[in-house]
């Protein structure tokens, strides 16, 4: 049963935002969710459904109004500021707009999480950055500035940066929404690759069902801040309730035609 101990556990989380014109918007309503170690988990939903907020709860970029969030057995919602910073080392995150430092080289961007925690001496740090850049196939760009890179390359630098401090989970917030179809595929391949090779648990938010269908093992459909349904993409034993769920299953089947799940990029 060790495999079923969740690596991320969201328990009865609520998050509301005050609207500028008064009133409030309930982004996440009483959501409980378990993410299992080593899986790639998708969160889908229409824009404004609360899927990004749910993802951002998982590293406490958004603090829940109530409920608790645990990652790797540690309850983040119970931690002080210092412990939370420490815990965040093990939670990587990538974003739609990459969020790289424009005035730092690719090398320095990847070194950033290592430097802020001061955990490594110079040779070890260099070795780790090199290793991560190799993993995403961008070692030759180490001395370049992000402005010189394509969108797909920037996202791969962001992935290398997220991986640098040996995370157990990687949160992906619309990682391919700013990319064209070709680079989307290459970034997805990179994600699939690091999941397979490093066993990093991936939670990915996207509205691109095709991307999610080819990538995820399980997914949740988020509607109005709640999880409308949660299912295994390979499970066809019962029909899906939501239209997004049906579409997702369709794309998953498409992606896996001719290749049994899991062996797609072996």
């Amino acid at each position, binding site marked *: 049963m060790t495999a079923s101990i969740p690596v991320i556990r969201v328990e009865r989380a609520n998050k509301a935002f005050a609207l500028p014109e008064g009133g409030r918007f309930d982004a996440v309503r009483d959501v409980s969710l378990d993410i299992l170690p080593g899986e790639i988990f998708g969160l889908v939903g229409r824009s404004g459904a609360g899927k990004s907020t749910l993802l951002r709860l998982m*590293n406490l*970029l958004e603090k829940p109004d109530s409920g608790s969030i645990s990652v790797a057995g540690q309850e983040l919602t119970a931690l002080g500021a210092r412990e*939370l*910073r*420490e*815990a*965040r*080392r093990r*939670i990587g*995150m990538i*974003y739609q*707009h990459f*969020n*790289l*430092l*424009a*005035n*730092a080289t690719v090398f320095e961007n990847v070194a*950033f*999480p290592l*430097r*802020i*925690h001061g955990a490594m001496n110079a040779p070890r740090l260099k070795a780790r950055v090199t290793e991560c850049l190799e993993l995403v196939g961008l070692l030759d760009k180490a001395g370049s*500035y*992000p*402005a010189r890179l394509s969108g797909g390359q920037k996202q791969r630098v962001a992935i290398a*940066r997220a991986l640098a*401090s040996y995370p157990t989970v990687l949160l992906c917030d619309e990682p391919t929404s700013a990319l064209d179809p070709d680079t989307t595929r290459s970034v997805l391949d990179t994600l699939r690759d690091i999941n397979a090779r490093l066993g990093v648990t991936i939670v990915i938010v996207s509205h691109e069902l095709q991307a999610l269908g080819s990538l995820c093992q399980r997914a949740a459909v988020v509607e109005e801040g709640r999880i409308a349904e949660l299912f295994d993409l390979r499970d066809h034993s019962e029909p899906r309730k939501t239209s997004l769920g049906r579409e997702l299953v369709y794309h998953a089947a498409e992606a896996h035609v001719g290749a049994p799940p899991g062996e797609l990029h072996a």
Partner: protein
Amino acid sequence: MLEKFLIVAPELWRAFGETLLMLGIGLSAAVLLGGPLGVVLFLNGSGEPGRGRSIGKVLGWLVNTVRSFPFIILMVALVPFTRIVAGTSIGPLAASVPLSCAAIPYFARLVEQQLHDVPRGVIEAAEAMGATRLQIVTRVLLLEARSGLVLALTVLAISFLSYSAVAGVVGGGGIGDLAIRYGYYRFETDVMVITVAILIAMVQLIQFGGGRIARRLDKR
């Protein structure tokens, strides 16, 4: 005109030195005190990752108040304070006190503005990686805003080159003061032309230098 130039040359040289002294002290104060103040204003401003919002409001109000003073009035109002700090209220060193007092809030606002241009997502990414607030300031905000900050300092230097002329009223000296005393009060037009020419050259040089450095620092 050349003859005239030779006569006033020693005085010009002295005035030039005084101007540099006032600018140097004023800009140093701006960077050392106004810079951090600008960071604090940014961190405690609305919509930013600030905890003590009320600190931001109080400091913002203080900055606005000092900035509302016309410089000449600020200078006169500060005379008692200047006497305490500089020991006298006359001369370039004394004039540096009100200059600094005006430069600090001015630069603080410029810094705050520049930091607002750093994309929110980049700050958030650093937060998500577990950076402390200080690390976010030094390793993200200042790094990403550095070329804008150099341009802000350039703007400040040029503004204060002309502010320093006003310092002549309290015997501050400097090139601007020379232009007023000789050129304006004594109708020695050629001296005024020379001083204005020097001021133009200085402004061009500062702008050119600042722009160049800013471009080299900007990798965006």
